[in-house]
């Protein structure tokens, strides 16, 4: 097997408007002699070291767009969108169980993180993710999903001691989703956190 190397190209910009800052980047990677490992799905002993092979070229390309908005001292939100694709040269080693790790990732993804100050040092937070459809390692595919996590945290100082308390609920909308095929994710995961610094 030959070692793997890559030529990588990237262009980007950060533009600061008054209330809005934007980052955009585009990239193109051309990986030579990509080492593909199909040990998990192969019908062999399954220890992974028996079906590594080089792919002449694997090309990955895409773009990232990130924007953050700040309105006064009370509200701040960030949204990040990623589009990514890849192409794989044929090797002649392809089988029904062949897979490529980049296949297991979505082409389109969005993350949102927002904070709103309800009262002094009391922040409501929201985090949301959209992940597009993608392939599963052992065949088939996974559906797109949107998850939403919410929380509230409060900090206060008393007698030179800083206290923190927060509550949260992850997957508050009860979405059915899997990040790895077959591993169903839980709904309504609620909890709390307390802390002290002195």
């Amino acid at each position, binding site marked *: 097997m030959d*070692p*793997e*190397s*890559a*030529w*990588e190209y990237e*262009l*980007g*910009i*950060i*533009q*600061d*408007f008054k209330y809005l800052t*934007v*980052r955009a*980047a585009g990239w193109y*990677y051309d990986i030579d002699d990509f080492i593909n490992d199909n040990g*998990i799905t192969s019908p062999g002993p*399954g220890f*992974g*070291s*028996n*079906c*590594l092979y080089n792919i002449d070229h694997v090309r990955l390309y895409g773009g*990232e767009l*990130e924007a*953050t908005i700040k309105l006064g001292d009370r509200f701040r939100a960030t949204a*990040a969108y*990623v589009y*990514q694709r*890849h192409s794989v040269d044929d090797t002649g*080693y392809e089988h029904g169980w062949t897979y490529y790790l980049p296949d*297991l*990732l979505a082409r389109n*993804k969005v*993350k949102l*993180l927002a904070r709103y100050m309800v009262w002094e040092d009391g*922040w409501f*937070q929201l985090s949301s993710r959209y992940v597009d459809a993608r392939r599963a390692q*052992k065949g088939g595919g996974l559906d797109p999903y949107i998850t939403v*996590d919410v*929380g509230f*945290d409060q900090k206060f100082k008393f007698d030179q001691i800083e206290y923190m308390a927060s509550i949260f609920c*992850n997957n508050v909308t009860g979405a059915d989703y899997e*990040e*790895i095929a*077959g*591993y*169903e*994710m*839980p709904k309504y*995961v*609620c*909890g*709390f*956190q*307390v*802390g002290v*610094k*002195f």
Partner: protein
Amino acid sequence: MKSKGKWKQFWKVFLVTGLAFIMVTISIPGLAKEKEPEPIDIGTITVMAPQPGVEITTEKTIINVDEFERPGEVNTLTDVLTEIGGIDVQRANPLMASPGDEVSIRGLNEGRMVIEIDGRRINQTGHYGRYIVDWSTLNLDDIESIEIIRGGHSVLHPFAIGGVINMITKKGKKTDDPKPDVSLKGGYGRYNTYNVSGSVDGGVGDVVGYHFSASRGDTDGYLRNDFQRVDNLNGHLSFFLPRDATFTVGAKYSDVLYGFPVINDPNDPDPGVAARYDDDYPKFKKSADQLRHINWPQLPTTGSLRPEWKKHTSYLDAIFQMPLGPGIVKIHGFWTEGRRWTSSYGKGASMEDPEKKFTKDDFVDDRTKGIICEYRDIDLFDSHSVTAGAEYQELGWPDENPIIYKVKSAYVQDVIHLGDRWTLTPGVRYYYVDMDTYYSQFGDGWPTEGKEGNDDGFYPSLKVDFQATPETALYAAVSRSYRLPCP
């Protein structure tokens, strides 16, 4: 290996000369003069600050861990990465970072990224399961900040085709105030998930700084048998020496007990498995994906046949730094040791005779050790900031094959400021890698080479930054990156 002898000689000369130079410099008063605090004026830089504790420049994203906020706990590295744009975290268990998690930047995972503690690589070889980075061991108790570099455009970090995630540790303070900063934290959530942690951070007499922290996380898990308990201990001591030199020693220790999810499927073809279906838990089928080799869906047994693993991981570091002439000298020795005991079923296991294919406490270890010698931030001609260094690394499986990879590399980077607007960053890294790795043994038509070999080459990089206006920063980068040929 055409030029093995030549490079062996080069390395010996380089290391001996470098060490001799540093020793002489420290011992002669006045020669090791304090670096003048005259930073190069690079004008305005446009920075994006999307959230508290997060800053994004054209080079990297920097996260201050103490300031970072999200809905939920911030205990492990993956808790932070989940919220960062452009990073994919695929979790087997969202309640706690687990060994089976996968993290990717731009489609490339930890096999093609470099994960670092204080600038040194912690990736293991990936033998016996492709556990190249075990995310369950990377708690944030002693982490001050996280740097994320997308792509392989920095020659300062080895094997970074996909990018770099570098955790900077807390090392204590230079202070004569004997009162330490103390932090205590705890939380509880669904599925009997809890965490407690505490830390002290301070200094003694302007001579010694310290940071100590400890934590425990525990969960019953969501899937059947997907329990986990993680104990962490961290300690860092910094000695503040004459001539602004510092010597820091650090240790991170993680003890993980992790249950492999077991099949919970009333329609499983094995009637013994189907009969054990428990509707208190979600279905988990034999066909579930595996991003690691060892954690295939296991038979639903308990007691002495409970599928699980125990893992002890230690990250040890010793760092010496000292201003010297126009730059800073840094020597960093490091050691990562992972020891795991896996109890699991092999392929073909059946409930008819479960013990037949069950292996108890199968022991595997991995070790990475090395040293980095670097002369960095060398200010030259008011417009250049040069960093040069050399690194030696050994990665292996102490019990079976102690040195699977032996890596020697050297690098140089120059950050050139052309006026207030233009910055050029050329760099190059040279690698020489000795490998004693996998056979490919698939049979006719498949590659059969790859056991022993070596490889060397130069890998250049160039980044151009243009600060068009105070509000607009543009950049372009091109680089050739190299990957340690692990699975």
